[in-house]
């Protein structure tokens, strides 16, 4: 059994926030981050270091299914009580599951009803003591075999969500490219939402086992942003997140292990096909090009690629937009943009375009030509670099306008990179980064030959 660690307290500065923020790790390993912010709104969120990266072929989708089931009651509060109580305060409640994490959040009015104690208590109770009743999960059925129970309960809800995403062209083309970007053993290859078969048939025991294994104190960071007093808040959170009350907390601590080791997956990228095409009922064509990037913890390279993304495809003045959409007449392209997703086991850089021409080869050649120039003879200019750095500073500041913006940035940084530095040091890194750093990152990660490409084409071509 792991020996309890000594509690730690770390104060750190955040831009645009007058008071220092606090990161405190309790004896049991649970971490609390607090950002003092005056205003009418608060946010509390708990980030769990698990997502589809910790799944396998037997339980793919369990992280997300569990996220749904966490709202289905505890021994103290039956299903629906948490939702009703939070929403009766005007609070917004939700949760999300990603490859690297799962998080639960409540954003509410600070001053309206003075019920923050209740919020902390019920939020913690949900994270620690969800009992995942069979009656809420629903009876097992296999949609792939055409089985349909009378009442589908939460299995049905998640299977409906799978259908929702299947009808979205951008999600479909993203999943296609994701599928060829990783080899079969890579945890990022599986879709976060899972499959109909697994969601329909996975047992309560399997879900419960996953819950107990990963929802341990060391794996959870709770963030509070709002107008509160630190000492009282710490006491409140420590009392509410009392993992010792959990029936099998000791076993959970024993079975605790780090989520997938980063090093073991570096380089395990897709080695097979680099192009995939699928017919669809859509009438226009959707393409996504994916590139493997640096580890999210490589903050310098990640920021350099963020700058490259802005120059290439994130504003009206971006190269792709100007050259393929704005100035070309007639243009086959309806839209084209870029984005980088920061991920624990390696970032991914995407170019996403929609076009009308049936000549996919020509459309892809146009995209490649611009990228080729960007990684060769026409690298980022001094003017583009200066303009983008300035713009990114403003964009970064905008993230601090809301409590949830602050909490999400810190929660993501802590869970994916293991440190708040990804947030606290952004402005300094923007100051110290050079144009050459961007050129180096672009040449390392964005050469056209490194692209994986997926295209959705109309079936009636």
């Amino acid at each position, binding site marked *: 059994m792991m020996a309890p660690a000594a509690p730690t307290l770390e104060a750190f500065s955040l831009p645009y926030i007058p008071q220092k923020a606090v990161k405190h790790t309790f004896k049991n390993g649970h971490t609390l981050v607090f950002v003092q912010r005056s205003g009418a*709104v608060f946010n509390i969120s708990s980030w769990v270091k698990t997502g589809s990266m910790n799944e396998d072929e037997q339980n793919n989708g369990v992280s997300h299914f569990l996220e749904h089931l966490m*709202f289905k009651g505890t021994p103290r509060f039956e299903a629906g009580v948490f939702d009703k109580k939070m929403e*009766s305060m*005007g609070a917004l409640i939700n949760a999300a599951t990603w490859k690297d994490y799962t998080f639960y959040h409540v954003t509410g009015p600070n001053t309206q009803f003075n019920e923050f104690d209740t919020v902390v208590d019920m939020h913690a109770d949900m994270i620690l003591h969800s009992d995942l009743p069979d009656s809420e999960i629903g009876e097992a059925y296999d949609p792939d075999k055409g089985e349909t129970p009378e009442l589908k309960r939460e299995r049905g809800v998640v299977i*409906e969500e799978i259908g929702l995403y299947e009808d979205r062209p951008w999600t479909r083309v993203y999943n296609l490219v994701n599928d060829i970007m990783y080899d079969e053993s890579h945890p990022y290859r599986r879709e976060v939402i899972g499959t109909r078969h697994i969601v329909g048939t996975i047992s309560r025991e399997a879900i419960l086992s996953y819950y107990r294994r990963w929802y341990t104190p060391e794996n959870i960071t709770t963030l509070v942003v709002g107008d509160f007093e630190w000492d009282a808040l710490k006491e409140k959170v420590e009392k509410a997140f009392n993992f010792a009350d959990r029936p099998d907390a000791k076993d959970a601590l024993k079975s605790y292990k780090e989520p997938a080791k980063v090093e073991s997956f570096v380089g395990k990228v897709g080695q097979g096909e680099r192009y995939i095409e699928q017919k669809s009922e859509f009438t226009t064509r959707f393409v996504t090009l994916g590139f493997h990037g640096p580890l999210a913890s490589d903050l310098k390279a990640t920021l350099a690629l963020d700058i490259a993304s802005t120059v290439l495809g994130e504003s009206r003045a971006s190269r792709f937009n100007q050259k393929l959409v704005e100035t070309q007449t007639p243009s086959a392209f309806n*839209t084209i943009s870029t984005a980088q997703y920061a991920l624990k086991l390696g970032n991914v850089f995407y170019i996403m375009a929609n076009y009308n021409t049936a000549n996919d080869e020509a459309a892809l050649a146009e995209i490649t030509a611009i990228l080729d120039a960007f990684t060769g003879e026409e690298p980022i200019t001094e003017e583009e670099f200066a*303009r983008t750095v300035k713009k990114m500073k403003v964009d970064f500041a*905008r993230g601090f306008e*809301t409590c949830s913006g602050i909490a999400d940035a810190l929660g993501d940084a802590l869970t994916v990179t293991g440190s708040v530095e990804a947030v606290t040091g952004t402005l300094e890194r923007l100051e110290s980064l050079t144009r050459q750093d961007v050129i180096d990152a672009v040449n390392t990660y964005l050469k056209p030959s490194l692209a994986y490409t997926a295209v959705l084409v109309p079936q009636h071509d």
Partner: protein
Amino acid sequence: MTKLLNSIETIPLLSGPTLLFVHQAGTPRLSINIYTKGGNCIDYFPGEMDVIDRLLLKGTYAETSEEIAVKLDDLCLDLDTDTARDYSIMSASMQAEDLEKNLAFIKDLLFYSTLEGLQKEKEKLKGELQMSLDSPTAVAKDLLSRKLWNGLPYGTSASTMLSSLGKLWRNDNVFLHYQQAYRPNRMVISVAGDVDRERLITALDAAFSLPRAKGTDGEMEMGRLFKEHRLKESRIFTTPWEEAAQAQILQSWLMPPATSKDYVPLAVLDNILGSAGLSSRLFLELRDKQGLAYSVRSSLSLLKHRGTFTLYIGTEPSNVQKCLEGFADEVKKLQDVLVGEEELENAKRNLIGKRSVFLETVGQTSSYVGSAYLAGHDLKSLASLDEKINAVTAEQIQKVAQKYLSKESVTVVVAPSEFLPKSPFFKHSKQDDTTTTETEAKAKTSTKKDDKTETAPVAV
């Protein structure tokens, strides 16, 4: 929040526009929304104002489209344009210190656009509209909008715009319309942020003083058309989408304008039925209990001339009938049974509390204030809205449910052909014989319309 909303000032500027100002101390950014009255209601062809608002960023006598794009980045000025039912909007977010510099640039964009890129912009818009219709949900919303408004400008949709883009071929006509619409006296400017009041007024007057005559917007005529608009019968319209994993179902009723005395009871009803979030009736019954959907909700949209109340669900195609019955059951419950005390209280608290959360940024505040003013709300009443919400009774909710949700509705279903309702009229299996007979009788009188299945607008 009440204090914030109490501080809204309505200031007629000497240059013509009406300024709505909310001073929010300690906010680093300034949000300025510039509304030009009219929106789709003054389109000569559906989508004309949409094309014009896009062209505002595509070249002036002083700067080319590319220069404008680069300048926006250089100035760190977030600027967007859009056209809604009742207005076109240019929304800007900036550092307060850059106010004068940015307003000079905005003046150039708003009043001195050349609109020279009309053909190119039409092509771009056409492509974007086609892409937007590559979604069963978008196709369902598009169909609903057209059927609900039956030619009135609130029914402007991606497909009506696609059909009319070809008619926008004369630069001079569009330019004339632009000059008539974009006049300072037809504008409302909503500002929220930490800026000195006098400095703001001086800067805005400098930017909006133009040697351009006043314009009118034909609001009287439009108001009459909307007021007289009725749905003749409740109908189901369908569009096949063979590959769809989910059926998209929308049911909508016409509502009164935003200034109606029923506005607040309707907002509480909407909250209870389907907009509160995870605890609304539709969510609890159709999602939590029956597992029929991931997305299910209601939405109330009250605009200047009229409004809509809409139910939405995305579900596995074989569930279409079950969901339509679910909608009908929940509506009937609201009409037949008084809402309980606890549920009513929770809904009120949800509405009141959510307003704080949704007014956290200056952008949210200026949008809220601007759109409320344009919809005809008395701004003073925004601060006292909490009191009005608290005063709503269960009897009032039942009354508005009976008054508005008993009238004709439009239902649309987008799904694979085999799952589309065969009759254009909804048959509720649990309804009594009298109602069923009446529905069937209507069906008999409209036999020709039985197979009136819409062709997917994506094919236009």
